[in-house]
């Protein structure tokens, strides 16, 4: 009945609705009529398979009867039947994709269980597809991966058969662990991780007992061969020719480590034990650690033929290991071996075996040594699995051949019955590249095997047991948890750490030193390495009493001595130490000697650091110039240093550093990771070295940074700040930006900043709409319009903007030519003064003797002391104050000010010529060296007061021009509003910097501070230079 219905209802004619039970019935009919794949029906079959997938998913989501029908008719068995014929990749691929879609999209759990329940899926998994076809391979492995994503505590039982000890999904997949196609390898790794994280005890036991040892030993061998390849690449590429290749190999090694770490992080104790064992004994110790000390190996046992890598590569790789892997039993043991193992480890490789043994309380069955696995993964798996249980895979005999070289042709199915010989040749041709790879690997394997056997680097089992006996007394020493123990031992008994320390020698270059630093740093950062191991080595010893109580034993003196010498070396001109090395050295040094905010550094070492600081500043002094670029470079380097602190993880991902250090920027290597090239880069380097060592010196001295950055951003006006402009000079202008928009603004020129303000409703106040640093401006006049200026404000370096788009590039139109000129002069002057001020700051940092008296070298303390002192003298205050005020008024005249600028730099010798001149000079200088930018806040000055001041000022001989200058700048009759503001501008002294002095006129006590100095200054020539300098600072 049912059959006939399906035959007539949906069998003959294709139903119109593709999503219906009828349609599936029709498809079933097609399948059952086309059970033999032939040339003619392949297209139809593919289409049918595709439709089945679609309909099943639709059914899963909409109509359960669809699925029932599929299961009832056992349609999966059709799939198998088709597969077992040599159906060709075309059909195969669609079949696999249909299965993929099916398992990927099924939401209904019961449907999934039904699909899995009849073991068809496992039959499909073990089916030997034509894996030489990359397409089939890709679909196959994706199918397995999709299945692995469906694994959980329930579904695992469909794949892992506890009774027959059979887990084809896993065992078939891992056979491709070293497939030549990276995506396939990744899929295998994904699958393994998905399997491991299913919490099923018996399955995990199976994984451990039957597969772990073969899989991990093969994996480790695979990684080791990559490492040898990497080493060969470094060796043969001193000229940076195959950078891409090297970058890939480095990234590949990182991938391996991350994969191992992902496994270890799943925290499956049994599995981790096996993996740790293999990693330590088969890879990390024999290949990585032994390579640290090649010479010793040769000397000790003339075992010079076991595979090894250069010590630079070994240090680099070990750094990666310690930066990525955190599994404590692994990294702790490895660190212990590097730090404490003695030379006996060479003559007797059972030593570290014992460490593993004691560390984990379990017996290690693995003989250490970097050796190929005794048999291929497939053979191992075959033998470890119960062969009888594997009835499914009939043709297991050919499993012995390595999986990636299955000599099958993907053509085999297309013309199945004929021309088998042709197929063979085709297949061979197609697999040529793969075979080539394989051959190389095989050769290598063979060679290595031979070498290893000859060398006897790994003792045969018979000797080991005796060695363990003989060496058992060494155990406690090696495993001593005492931190200071290594300090008591002479270095020479610890060949590995000794060679790490020796690598820190930078006399010739810092090639190996950088990685030695990385490794030491990675030790310290690794959570898995026990603290007890590192105290006294990489951290200060925490126990003040005991054998290490004297200061000299509070930290690792040999290392510190070497670090200090790196620092000292890097300060010399033409040093071979790269910036990155210096930065890492400094970081490591602070880590070793600083604990709980106190430095244990011995005086002799501290003195060496201070000496280095001196040296570095003397080198930098040679580059100190008044040229504009020096300031820009200095600030640039400072911000670079603060913005991008060294990231060691990233450093060890960079394959570029693996090649010998170079000086040319043509390699594309970052500045910090190579040596400087040319004068400019040498200057940059000198700046950076100085800054870093200065930083270190501050840290060691527990001092706070006071002098840097050069710009105190907290004191700067920010956009949207509301400013009191009552006593500021304002120049009205129209700003026309590039896109033609026009805005009316008032230009305010602060000590270090240029501010464009918009008036607020409140009279005399304005909102900062745009703020730029004067040092970053460029001003040019307009040829055609005398009222115009073209102003470009560049981004400050500290903003971190990578693309240096100007903050503003616009045309400024002023009311008239005079005001335009005034603005130009003040901007130009402001710019050079802002820069000059910073150059003076730098000079002070470098202890450049102050040729200019204006150098505000003495700090604020002196200033305040003087203020207090002066506060005691009452009488002269007011008069002096007035005088001072007048001087500022003088300065408002643009032309005058410009002339004065030239005077402000020369020596003080001519200052005493005329008291008036002195005053003028000082006032002008006082602006330029004003210690901090003062904001014109809460400094409202009664208008009458100012008027009075002005009157008085007019009496002074030198100030005749005052009225005219102010009227030139901002005439009272100006048209712009608010008029109140313009009046203020006219009357009050020009710059914001004068704010404090202006305010002092309204508040007598403060005023006295200022005025008394001026009085002293005017009293004249007998005052000492120092005193005069003091006066200047105060304003």
């Amino acid at each position, binding site marked *: 009945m049912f059959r006939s219905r399906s035959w007539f209802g949906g069998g003959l004619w294709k139903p119109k609705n593709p999503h219906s039970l009828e349609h599936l019935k029709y498809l079933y009919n097609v399948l059952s009529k086309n059970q033999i794949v032939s040339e003619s029906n392949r297209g139809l079959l593919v289409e049918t398979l595709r439709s089945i997938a679609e309909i099943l998913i639709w059914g899963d989501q909409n109509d359960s009867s669809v699925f029932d029908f599929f299961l009832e008719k056992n349609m999966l068995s059709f799939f198998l039947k088709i597969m077992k014929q040599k159906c060709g990749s075309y059909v195969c691929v669609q079949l696999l*994709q249909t299965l993929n879609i099916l398992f*990927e999209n099924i939401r209904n759990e019961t449907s999934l269980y039904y699909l899995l329940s009849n073991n068809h899926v496992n039959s499909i998994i073990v089916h030997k597809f034509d894996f030489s076809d990359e397409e089939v391979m890709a679909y196959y492995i*994706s199918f397995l991966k999709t299945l692995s994503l469906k694994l959980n505590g329930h579904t695992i039982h469909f794949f892992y058969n506890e009774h027959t000890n059979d887990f084809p999904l896993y065992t078939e997949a891992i056979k491709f662990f070293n497939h030549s196609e990276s995506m396939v390898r990744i899929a295998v790794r994904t699958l393994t991780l998905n399997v491991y994280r299913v919490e099923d005890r018996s399955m995990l036991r199976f994984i451990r007992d039957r597969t772990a040892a073969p899989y991990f030993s093969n994996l480790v061998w695979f990684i080791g061969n990559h490492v040898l390849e990497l080493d060969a690449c470094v060796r043969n590429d001193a000229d940076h020719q195959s950078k891409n290749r090297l970058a890939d190999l480095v990234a590949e090694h990182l991938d391996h480590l991350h994969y191992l770490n992902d496994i270890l992080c799943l925290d499956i104790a049994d599995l981790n034990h096996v993996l740790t064992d293999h990693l330590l004994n088969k890879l990390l110790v024999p290949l990585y650690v032994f390579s640290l000390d090649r010479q010793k190996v040769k000397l000790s046992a003339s075992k010079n033929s076991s595979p090894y890598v250069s010590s630079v590569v070994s240090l680099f790789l070990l750094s990666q290991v310690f930066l990525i892997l955190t599994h404590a039993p692994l990294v702790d043991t490895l660190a212990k071996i590097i730090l404490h193992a003695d030379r006996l480890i060479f003559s007797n490789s059972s030593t570290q075996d014992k460490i593993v043994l004691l560390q984990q309380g379990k017996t290690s069955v693995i003989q250490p040594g970097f050796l190929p696995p005794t048999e291929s993964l497939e053979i191992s798996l075959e033998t470890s699995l119960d062969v009888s249980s594997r009835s499914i895979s009939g043709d297991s005999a050919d499993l012995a051949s390595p999986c990636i070289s299955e000599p099958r042709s993907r053509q085999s199915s297309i013309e199945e019955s004929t021309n088998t010989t042709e197929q063979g040749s085709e297949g061979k041709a*197609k697999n040529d590249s793969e075979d080539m790879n394989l051959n190389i690997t095989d050769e290598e394997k063979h060679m290595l095997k031979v070498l290893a056997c000859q060398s006897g680097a790994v003792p045969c089992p018979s000797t080991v047991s005796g060695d363990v006996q003989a060496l058992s007394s060494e155990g406690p020493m090696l495993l001593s948890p005492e931190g200071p123990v290594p300090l008591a031992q002479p270095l020479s008994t610890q060949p590995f750490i000794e060679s790490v320390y020796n690598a820190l020698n930078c006399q010739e270059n810092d090639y190996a030193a950088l990685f030695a630093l990385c490794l030491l740093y990675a030790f310290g950062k690794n959570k898995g390495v026990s603290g007890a191991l590192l105290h006294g080595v990489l951290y200060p010893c925490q126990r003040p009493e005991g054998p290490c109580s004297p200061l000299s034993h509070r930290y690792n003196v040999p290392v510190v001595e070497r670090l200090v010498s790196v620092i000292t070396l890097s300060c010399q001109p033409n040093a071979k130490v790269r910036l990155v090395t210096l930065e890492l050295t400094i970081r490591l040094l602070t880590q070793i000697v600083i604990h709980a905010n106190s430095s244990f550094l011995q005086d002799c070492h501290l003195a060496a650091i201070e000496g280095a600081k001196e040296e570095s500043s003397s080198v930098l002094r040679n580059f100190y110039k008044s040229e504009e670029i020096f300031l820009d470079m200095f600030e640039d380097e400072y911000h670079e240093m603060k913005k991008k602190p060294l990231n060691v993880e990233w450093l060890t991902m960079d394959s570029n550093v693996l090649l010998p250090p170079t000086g040319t920027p043509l390699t594309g290597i970052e500045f910090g990771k190579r040596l400087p090239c040319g004068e400019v880069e040498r200057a940059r380097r000198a700046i950076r070295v100085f800054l870093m060592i200065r930083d270190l010196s501050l840290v060691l001295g527990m001092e706070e940074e006071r002098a840097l950055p050069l710009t105190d951003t907290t004191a700067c006006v920010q956009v949207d700040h509301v400013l009191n402009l009552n006593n500021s000079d304002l120049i009205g202008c129209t700003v026309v930006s590039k896109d033609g928009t026009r805005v009316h603004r008032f230009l305010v020129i602060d000590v270090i900043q240029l501010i464009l303000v918009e008036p607020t409703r409140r009279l005399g106040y304005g909102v900062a709409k745009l703020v730029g640093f004067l040092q970053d401006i460029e001003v040019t006049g307009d040829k055609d319009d005398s009222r115009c200026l073209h102003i470009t404000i560049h981004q400050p370096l500290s903003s971190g903007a990578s693309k240096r788009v100007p903050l503003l590039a616009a045309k400024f139109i002023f009311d008239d030519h005079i005001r335009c000129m005034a603005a130009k002069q003040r901007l130009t002057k402001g710019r050079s003064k802002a820069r000059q001020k910073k150059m003076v700051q730098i000079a002070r940092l470098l202890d450049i003797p102050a040729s200019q008296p204006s150098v505000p070298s003495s700090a604020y303390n002196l200033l305040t002391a003087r203020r207090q002192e002066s506060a005691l003298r009452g009488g002269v205050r007011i008069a002096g104050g007035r005088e001072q005020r007048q001087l500022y008024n003088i300065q408002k005249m643009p032309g005058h000010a410009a002339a004065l600028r030239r005077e402000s730099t020369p020596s003080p010798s001519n200052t005493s010529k005329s008291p008036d001149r002195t005053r003028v000079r000082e006032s002008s200088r006082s602006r330029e060296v004003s210690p901090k930018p003062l904001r014109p806040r809460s400094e409202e000055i009664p208008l009458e007061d100012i008027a009075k001041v002005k009157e008085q000022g007019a009496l002074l001989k030198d100030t005749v021009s005052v009225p005219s200058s102010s009227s030139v700048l901002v005439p009272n009759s100006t048209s712009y509003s608010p008029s109140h503001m313009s009046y203020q501008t006219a009357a009050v002294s020009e710059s914001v910097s004068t704010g404090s002095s202006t305010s002092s006129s309204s508040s007598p006590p403060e005023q006295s501070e200022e005025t008394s100095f001026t009085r002293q200054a005017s009293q004249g020539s007998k005052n000492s230079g120092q005193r005069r300098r003091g006066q200047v600072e105060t304003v």
Partner: protein
Amino acid sequence: MSYAYLFKYIIIGDTGVGKSCLLLQFTDKRFQPVHDLTIGVEFGARMITIDGKQIKLQIWDTAGQEAFRSITRSYYRGAAGALLVYDITRRETFNHLTTWLEDARQHSNSNMVIMLIGNKSDLETRREVKKEEGEAFAHEHGLIFMETSAKTAANVEEAFINTAKEIYEKIQEGVFDINNEANGIKIGPQHSPTNASLPSSGQGAGQGGGCC
């Protein structure tokens, strides 16, 4: 089935943005989505033609593997192109783009072509992310941008093909080292005898179906 080049793509983006549906739509466009049927797949391959050359695209979905750092890392590294997908009806998927992009840039090779895709453009009424926003993001980060609908197949072809064109151009410019397979680019088996003996019927059907 011979090809001049094989490009490997990955698809990244939050879950539920329609990555696997895009993939299936592209590799097997016969899946016409009706009845609100959402079907996706994790892997697909398809042949396209650029500049008269047969180019095979292999697309690997990275979904469900985010838990393992090693896996995402390796995927990024092995790909020549990446489709970074968000859902225009879910703002948060757009907000997460920066994180995805950072990841991609950190792990991938610097030449990898990244295309930003705003998916589900058929759901205009539920739109939460404006097209302009997507454009702006793409512009800012130097990506190609396109809005697609895996459901109506709008722009799906274009998205994959434009990415391929960009990669192809980079190859022509010599930016990609094509001999290095780690870049996600493979040169086809040029003179392999297997190609010649391929039965044309199967080939034709395969192309017609857009599969393989």
